[in-house]
């Protein structure tokens, strides 16, 4: 099934070189792009999306794939596979990511999280991650990736990019994906062909499981939106910013009355507003 989901590389030895070149190019392009990301005229919190027309095209293709491939597959998956088995799949997928999470915990100097990640890995190792005993022991899974690490180090998102099949991203998180790939020990296990198939299947199953787990929510988000692309774009940014802060409240921004969301400074409650005429809109 791999071929459907990814530009197919051949099946020879030189593929690994080709693949590495592909990733190296992506990396270089992403690095160059983030270098020239200079959003000047953006409103606070707005996503920098200078390649919106191209992104919207990729998004339309992704949406088509979602409608005709991913959504039906996820539906069958959640209706035919019993929940405990699906939980084992999720648990395994989380477990194989442990080394990457651990390295990122350490790079973020989050020693408490590193300890939890390492303990989880050991606690779930006897059953190769399929059985999650760790959560019951109070060791709760939390994902980290190199995009988040860059964020913790102070890197802004940069340019918003809609990746084919992989969905919303930006220059920072795309770089993060590539670095995570090379950080991952499973990248270096087995022969090239087997490894390639493993990497593709793992991501495909991950995608199907994610879609199945959020089946109603995602369908709802789509059905109730007037501009689904824009909705996904802002949700992606808010969710990533939250992941970088590990869910902690945003620091207060300087304003008249400091609060964690400067944007709500513009909010005018009904009672203090006798005329709906000229309310302070954003200064362009």
């Amino acid at each position: 099934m791999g071929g459907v989901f990814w530009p197919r590389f051949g099946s020879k030895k030189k593929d690994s070189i080709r693949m590495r070149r592909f990733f190296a190019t992506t990396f270089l392009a992403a690095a160059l792009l983030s270098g020239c990301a200079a959003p000047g005229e953006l409103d606070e919190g707005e996503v920098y999306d200078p390649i919106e027309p191209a992104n919207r095209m990729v998004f339309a293709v992704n949406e088509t794939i979602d409608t005709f491939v991913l959504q039906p597959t996820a539906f069958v998956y959640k209706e035919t596979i019993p929940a405990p088995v699906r939980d084992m799949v999720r648990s395994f997928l989380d477990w194989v990511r442990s080394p990457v999470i651990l390295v990122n915990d350490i790079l973020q100097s989050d020693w408490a999280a590193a300890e939890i990640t390492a303990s989880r890995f050991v606690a779930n190792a006897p059953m190769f991650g399929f059985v999650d005993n760790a959560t019951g022991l109070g060791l709760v899974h939390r994902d980290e990736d190199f995009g988040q690490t860059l964020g913790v180090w102070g890197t802004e998102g940069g340019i918003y990019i809609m990746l084919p099949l992989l969905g919303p991203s930006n220059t920072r998180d795309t770089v993060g994906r590539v670095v995570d790939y090379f950080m991952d020990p499973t990248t270096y296990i087995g022969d090239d062909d087997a490894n390639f198939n493993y990497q593709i299947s793992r991501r495909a199953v991950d995608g199907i499981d994610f879609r199945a787990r959020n089946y109603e929510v995602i369908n709802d988000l789509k059905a109730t939106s007037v501009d689904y692309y824009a909705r996904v774009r802002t949700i992606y940014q808010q969710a990533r910013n939250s992941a970088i802060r590990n869910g902690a409240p945003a620091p207060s921004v300087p304003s008249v009355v400091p609060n964690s969301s400067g944007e709500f400074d513009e909010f005018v409650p009904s009672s203090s507003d006798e005329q709906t005429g000229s309310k302070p809109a954003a200064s362009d």
Partner: protein
Amino acid sequence: MGAIARIVLVAAVLVVGSRASLAESGAENFIRTLADRALSLVTEPSASMPEKRVRFDALLNETFDMPAIGRFLLGRYWPLATQEQREAYLKAFNENIVYTYTNRFNSYSGQTLSVDGSREDGQFVIVTSRIIDPNGGPPVVLDWRLVKTGDDYKVIDLKIEDVSMSITLRREYASLIENNGRSVQALIDALNKSMATLKARNS
């Protein structure tokens, strides 16, 4: 001077401090009451869906500052709209929210809201809470942003897992308006079109 000034200062801090914490526990109770009322509406077996919509609309407008939220979502485009457009937009927006949430009533399966705490955030109060799923799913974090109006509170934003509904809709509306020649009418039309689909889907 020093001693007296210090006592006055301490007294002032105590008064302000206790008032603040009182205000915040008031906010927590406000959210508890809101959740209870919403839950009893969702689980009401005798009421029909259209009836529930009417009652949800009333609860929403009593507890959320809907006109102000609507204005905030339009942001810089609010002054561009005519009076008729503003009214049409506020109506469409309100109806859209009502349908979005009442359509979810049927998928309710015993979840409860646990109010965990509150804090002041500038001119607002934020109440933190979690949806607890009795079926074993992970809890969902909900943060309510409230504004105090007189003795009462009004909700102006709801953050679900750190994603703000108000900010999300504000961005979405802005994008749609920008991509349609800065026309507020385009947004009103899109909202009404989406309403037609929502109504067809669930009625």
